[in-house]
């Protein structure tokens, strides 16, 4: 009997969706738009955070220049010293001859115009932590400690800015997520309340023929679940498609800053999260709408 009733209630929800086609369509459209905005904003925030977080890794290098025509021995000594420093991941010597050869290949016009190699020996120092770059570069600039170093360049300021942006995005994104979640819940709740209100006569009749509150509630909850899930599916497809278009655009830019940023969320995970969120919001919105409506009767 329980399975019979359950099958009836599921069938009832299906019939209601089909027979109240226009209202269902309106509810589905509203839920889809709300979920697209919520999902799109959250995913964008997440990807921006991932992107910004990955940027300092590209700035964890310090270039150490030795004076022009410095003795190679000094460069080797410095290389050895820096390699043994705990904060340093790796250090490489790029001699002025190697640098000249690369320049000849990359910018032949420029090298032809210059008679003598003006370049300096350079040590490329890769740091273990991007956040230490600025501090370590400052240390290398101390002439008393490192008298053989002519000039030190690092991306300390850029690193600091990016880390600040990353923090800001997390805060704004978190706030937006909470705000949009509540707004979406409110929209879905109101939409389902409208569908419930449109069927108030039906609900009163159900009550008068002896339907239990659970019996009245379940088909409406299932309708909410359907609208939430379907809205989630459509919103998921829209968001992933928009993501693909953005990704194609970013790739076409060929900026050295914007490479392939690895993500923790695969497209299928993003899709599943949106559908599950839609289902959850659909059920919760229905529950709140029905509870309020049944209380008013």
């Amino acid at each position, binding site marked *: 009997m329980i399975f019979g009733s359950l099958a009836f209630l599921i069938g009832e929800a299906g019939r209601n969706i089909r027979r109240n086609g226009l209202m269902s369509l309106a509810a589905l459209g509203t839920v889809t738009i709300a979920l697209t905005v919520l999902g799109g904003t959250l995913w964008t925030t997440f990807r921006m955070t991932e992107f910004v977080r990955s940027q300092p890794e590209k700035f964890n290098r310090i270039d150490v220049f030795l004076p022009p025509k410095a003795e190679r021995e000094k460069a080797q000594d410095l290389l050895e010293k820096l390699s043994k420093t705990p904060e340093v991941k790796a250090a490489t010597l790029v001699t002025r001859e190697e640098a000249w050869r690369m320049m000849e290949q990359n910018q032949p016009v420029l090298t032809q115009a210059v008679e003598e190699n003006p370049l300096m020996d350079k040590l490329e120092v890769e740091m273990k932590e991007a956040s230490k770059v600025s501090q370590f570069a400052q240390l290398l600039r101390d002439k008393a400690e490192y008298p053989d170093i002519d000039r030190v360049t690092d991306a300390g300021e850029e690193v600091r800015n990016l880390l600040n942006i990353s923090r800001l995005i997390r805060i704004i994104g978190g706030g937006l997520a909470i705000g949009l979640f509540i707004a979406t819940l409110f929209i879905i709740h109101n939409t389902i309340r409208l569908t419930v209100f449109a069927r108030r006569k*039906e609900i009163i009749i159900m009550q*008068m*023929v002896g339907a239990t509150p659970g019996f009245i509630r379940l088909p409406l909850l299932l309708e909410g679940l359907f609208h939430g899930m379907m809205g989630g599916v459509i919103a998921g497809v829209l968001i992933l498609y928009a993501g693909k278009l953005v990704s194609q655009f970013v790739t076409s830019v060929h900026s050295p800053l914007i490479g392939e940023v690895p993500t923790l969320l695969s497209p299928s995970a993003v899709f599943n999260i949106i559908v599950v969120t839609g289902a959850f919001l659909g059920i919760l919105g229905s529950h709140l709408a029905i509870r309020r409506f049944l209380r008013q009767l």
Partner: protein
Amino acid sequence: MIELRGVGVTYSNAWRALSNVQLKIDKGEFVFVVGSTGAGKSTLLKLLSREEVSTDGTITVNGQDLKHLPLRDLPAYRRKIGIVFQDFGLLPNKTVYENVAFALQVTGATRQTIRRQVPHVLDLVAMSHRPDAFPNQLSGGEQQRVAIARALANEPFLLLADEPTGNLDPETSLGIIQLLNHINVRGTTVIVATHDHAVVDFLQRRVIAFEQGGLVRDELAGSYRATETQTETQEERA
């Protein structure tokens, strides 16, 4: 079976819909409730269907105190009574068969029971020839017959009808009232609230009349208008 003792209903705006009503209705009776608009007819029926709760007095139906009926027991109580509305109250998106079956489905009845009972009650109200029609494809009289079939689906001991002929022409109204009479003859207690002189005078059954929330007349075989020789107050009956 039904007993009201000192029943009063006062709404939040201080409107007194019913005042000190004493009434007893036995099993198997057919009762017309008459009175002008706002006299208290519908309020009485709403109290019996437990849509409203009295502010004073007690109402017992089949030994159940309606004022203190727990909400969780309300669906079970409603399944034992049948309710017929003036506007028929059919679900517009369901067919005739589905509307009647619905009253059984909410009780968790088996498919076999539904398949047996729905044709039976549709036959009883002479609507078995249009099971697949939707309400908007039926005349007013046919819709009311379907509503009565739905009310009978769970074999109620009490049938409450609030202005069942209010939206029907005189001829159709007589047909509906004859149907209700037939149901009463089969053993169901029937209470009909109505403005319709013709149907009350046609059947000549018990009539109780309300005025400004008070029960002013109770005749065993009455007509819509009071006749001095037939007037018998509730106190005299008691």
